[in-house]
């Protein structure tokens, strides 16, 4: 859903800092459906003979067709949903935590909804709409509003509520809902055939999701009495707290320990009975089927995982810990709902830092990352090998999907694969050195680079550079970092890298104790780079410290991050890679404001600003997808991020007592949790 936001959750700040959104064709991806009871066969990894635990198929497979009749689905029951962090507040306007949102998203509705399978924009509170004056500086959208909704306190929902909701958020410039007042100038009652008319602030390509679907519906009879939305506490004002049109009622909100959502009677909530839901191949109308969801909060992920394994909770936020997946699969009554992550893990380069401002060096460093070791051996096949900065779950804007390729396949998406010597884990040192010495760059044109053929870019886009920025040579090693590994060192414009500008390159990473497998992978990467002659230091750093160094001060060379979120329509690359989101754009707030563009790409080391903004303002969806895919491919070639992997989500579920979850969609535990909550029902 475009509007149900992903925000910081503290414990995994990066994961929930970014908005998610869409892209069509997520269903084209594969993975088996809901699995459990040990019915999955481990696959054999080609070439090694090693077995991985994951169901690693990447064959195309659609979300399974639903054949249930909603009348035959049993109603009632309580699902217990575990979380490893506390919610922050029950005030939807100020909440920034995903752990509040899992409950609050069931209370509030928006103008339009995104189909969780196809990512098409569908009617919700608004029945139909029309974009008018599309070429004007401030286009308008005329729309009609449903007249059969009620608030969960029994009051009728009206057009005045729609207008009030937008006015309230725009006038108060509610920080957490900045997309409303950034994108929408006003909403007024229409004088013609439509109920309402919305005026945009500018041309926005994703106007349907970013404007029509941006604003939560707020009851005028409640919020008109609220003078200070910042300190408003809905639970203190009334017994069942927040008032919304959604199916849920927040009956308990104990931020230290638990929350409870009780669902309204089916006849009180008509939205899941809409025609498009009813006719959908993969959805079932008439939900929610449960009586309630109890949310239980645990102090840490390990306690949460244990709570699931011993049946204390029926499901929990996020994917099951990889190490526990085999045990869950072998346990009677426990299952896993397969899905896609909405983001990716990556290593980032500080493009301001010389010589990392050179695309050529960034690409060469990527050649040494042993992706097979990471994805197959350490991650046991539970991740896809990374390439573009866009989740394969939101494939509609991925270059290989848009430009007639096969998802996650094709040499154009493997330009920076590990350059090993044959099938061995040893890097092809000579070819990487030659790449640098020859001043080469994989710039989008076809050729053989560091020993591997590249067919040319899918979109025809070129990298920001066609040759290296510096003169690279290899000469006698000066750095002790290379002792016993390499006799030669990379020289940049005649100076050893260890003495050039900031000295050896360092990588900020999680302390290995917190993430041992990642520690192993980065140790191997550093070792491979040393073999090439590139001195590298690994600097284990706590998350908060790293976050400060990276997002506020840009005081780093490279860092790794477990998650960067993308959205279905590709707009997330604007936050990640446009220069307006780098710290340099913040003026006097530099150092205080969280810089989503942490690498400074666009400010230094290449830029995709023009392509990104061209896509951002494109009003035609198909053209917009092509433009975003082009921008994404340019970012891939310029490599401010080296995308490591995309998680194959395994959402845990008590399959003995519950069924009906929608498999093979993106982030079932959060981004599409509304849909899961309205589909899950008791096992007969």
């Amino acid at each position, binding site marked *: 859903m475009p509007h149900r936001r992903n925000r910081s959750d503290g414990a995994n700040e990066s994961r929930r800092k970014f908005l998610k959104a869409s892209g069509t064709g997520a269903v084209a991806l594969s993975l088996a459906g809901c699995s459990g009871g040990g019915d999955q066969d481990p696959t054999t990894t080609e070439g090694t003979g090693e077995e991985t635990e994951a169901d690693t198929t990447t064959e195309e497979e659609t979300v399974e067709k639903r054949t249930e009749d909603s009348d035959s689905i049993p109603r009632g029951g*309580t699902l217990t949903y575990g979380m490893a*962090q506390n919610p922050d*507040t029950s005030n939807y306007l100020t909440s920034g935590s995903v752990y509040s949102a899992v409950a609050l998203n069931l209370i509030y509705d928006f103008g339009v909804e995104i189909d969780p399978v196809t990512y098409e924009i569908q009617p919700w509170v608004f029945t139909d709409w029309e974009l008018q004056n599309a070429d004007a500086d401030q286009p308008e959208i005329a729309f009609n509003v449903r007249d059969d909704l009620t608030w969960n306190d029994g009051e009728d929902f009206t057009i005045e509520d729609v207008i009030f909701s937008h006015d309230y958020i725009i006038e108060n410039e509610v920080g957490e809902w900045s997309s409303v007042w950034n994108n929408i100038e006003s909403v007024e009652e229409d004088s013609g055939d439509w109920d309402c008319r919305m005026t945009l602030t500018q041309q926005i390509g994703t106007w349907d999701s970013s404007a029509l679907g941006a604003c939560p519906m707020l009851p005028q009879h409640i919020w008109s009495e609220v003078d200070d939305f910042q300190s408003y506490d809905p639970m203190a004002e009334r017994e069942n707290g927040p008032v919304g049109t959604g199916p849920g009622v927040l009956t308990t909100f*104990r931020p230290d320990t638990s929350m409870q959502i009780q669902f309204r009677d089916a006849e009180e909530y008509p939205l899941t009975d809409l025609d498009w839901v009813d006719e959908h191949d993969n959805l079932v109308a008439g939900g929610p089927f449960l009586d309630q969801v109890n949310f239980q909060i645990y*102090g840490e992920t390990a306690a949460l995982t*244990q709570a699931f394994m011993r049946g*204390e909770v029926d499901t929990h936020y996020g994917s099951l810990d990889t190490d526990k997946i085999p045990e869950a699969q072998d346990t009677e009554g426990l299952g896993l709902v397969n899905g896609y992550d909405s983001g990716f893990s990556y290593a980032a380069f500080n493009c301001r830092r010389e010589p990392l401002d050179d695309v050529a060096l960034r690409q060469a460093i990527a050649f040494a990352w042993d992706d097979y070791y990471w994805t197959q051996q350490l991650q046991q096949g539970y991740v896809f090998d990374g390439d573009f900065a866009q989740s394969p779950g939101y494939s509609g804007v991925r270059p290989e999907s848009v430009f007639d390729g096969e998802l996650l396949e094709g040499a154009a998406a493997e330009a920076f694969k590990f350059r090993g010597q044959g099938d061995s884990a040893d890097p092809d040192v000579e070819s990487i050195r030659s790449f640098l010495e020859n001043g080469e760059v994989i710039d989008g044109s076809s050729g053989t680079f560091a020993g591997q053929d590249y067919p040319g870019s899918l979109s025809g886009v070129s990298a920001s550079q066609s040759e290296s920025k510096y003169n690279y040579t290899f000469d006698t090693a000066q750095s002790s970092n290379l002792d016993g590994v390499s006799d030669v060192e990379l020289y940049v414009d005649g100076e050893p890298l260890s003495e050039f500008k900031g000295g050896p390159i360092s990588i900020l990473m999680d302390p290995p104790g917190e993430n041992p497998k990642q520690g192993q992978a980065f140790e191997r990467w550093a070792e491979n780079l040393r073999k090439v002659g590139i001195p590298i230091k690994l600097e284990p750093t706590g998350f908060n410290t790293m976050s400060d160094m990276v997002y506020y001060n840009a005081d780093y060379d490279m860092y790794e991050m477990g998650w960067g979120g993308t959205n279905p329509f590709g707009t997330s690359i604007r936050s990640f890679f446009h220069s307006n989101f780098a710290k340099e754009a913040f003026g*006097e707030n530099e150092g205080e404001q969280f810089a989503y563009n942490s690498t400074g790409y666009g400010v230094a080391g290449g830029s995709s600003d023009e392509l990104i903004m061209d896509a951002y303002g494109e009003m035609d969806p198909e053209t917009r997808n092509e433009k975003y895919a082009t921008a994404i491919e340019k970012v891939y070639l310029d490599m401010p991020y080296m995308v490591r992997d995309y998680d194959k989500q395994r959402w845990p579920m008590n399959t003995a007592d519950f069924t009906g979850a929608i498999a093979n969609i993106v982030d079932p535990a959060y981004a599409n949790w509304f849909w899961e909550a309205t589909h899950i029902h008791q096992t007969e």
Partner: protein
Amino acid sequence: MTRISARYLGKRIVVSYITLLVIMTLLFALLRSMPGTFISSMITPEMQPEQIQRMREVWGLNEPLWKQYVNFMVNYQTGEFGMSPTNRVPVWDIMIRRLPRTLILFGAAFIVAYIVGPLVGMYLGWLRGSRKDKSIFASSLVMYSMPAFWLAWLFIWLFNYELGWLESTYMYHQFPQFEWTVVSTITNVLHHITLPLISLAFVNWVGVMLVMRPSMNNVTEEDYVFLAQAKGLSERTVMIKHAARNALIPVATQAIVGLAFLIDGSIIIEQVFSWPGIGQLIVNAVISKDYPVAQASFFILAVLVVVMRLLTDVVYTYLDPRIKFGEG
């Protein structure tokens, strides 16, 4: 006759107060030296500079630093900890909710540790040098060397996961709502508190025993113990009434400081058992950069430690008649 002079007491109070002021100053400085501010987590990428400035104004960050410092010092001394940027409620409300839970858990652990520890210490000190003393002492040291969190996981695995006897999370059942009678509430809390309590007490009683044991051994050499034995009193009476009572003095004083440190150790145990107290709050606040909450939590722990220190000095004079403070 008072054993502690008013002048000495006043001096100790002033020193304690100054200690707290220094701690507050350090807390203020540490918070301000961090990159960004506590409103950083509330700033979204689309926000305009003027909106960020307005937010700074609302949260008092546009004031000169010295004024922020003065406000901070005044507010903290009046119990005004400000608002939590995460929860948007007064920090004090959160503290009031959390602190009693921490005190219940660690109060209970304290009582258990300071009953078991002195008893075992008394026994071993009385039998010092015997095979029983050596074997129990050695095994106690092994226990003392175990990290509390590791022991906690072991207990969870055994008593919750394998045997299913005891709960390993929370203070009481969250769902379904049970009938809130006195008996059911106590039973429910006992069911939940037992594992974190024994995890804490299991390690901490040894520390107490290590103080009691040599203390006991020392008093067994005292004349009044020989006199009691010479009077023909039973060994049990001599051990408990004459030796142990005097040996308890260092244990009692150590207990006051021990309680403060027991609370300080709440962070790990509360995390492991999802116990919704101050320790868990500190971890969450630091992770989510809710600096006002983290700052207030540290401050409250600091106050507890400083006050306990002060009490130690006062109580010590009453426990040991030989001690007199502040006199010539």
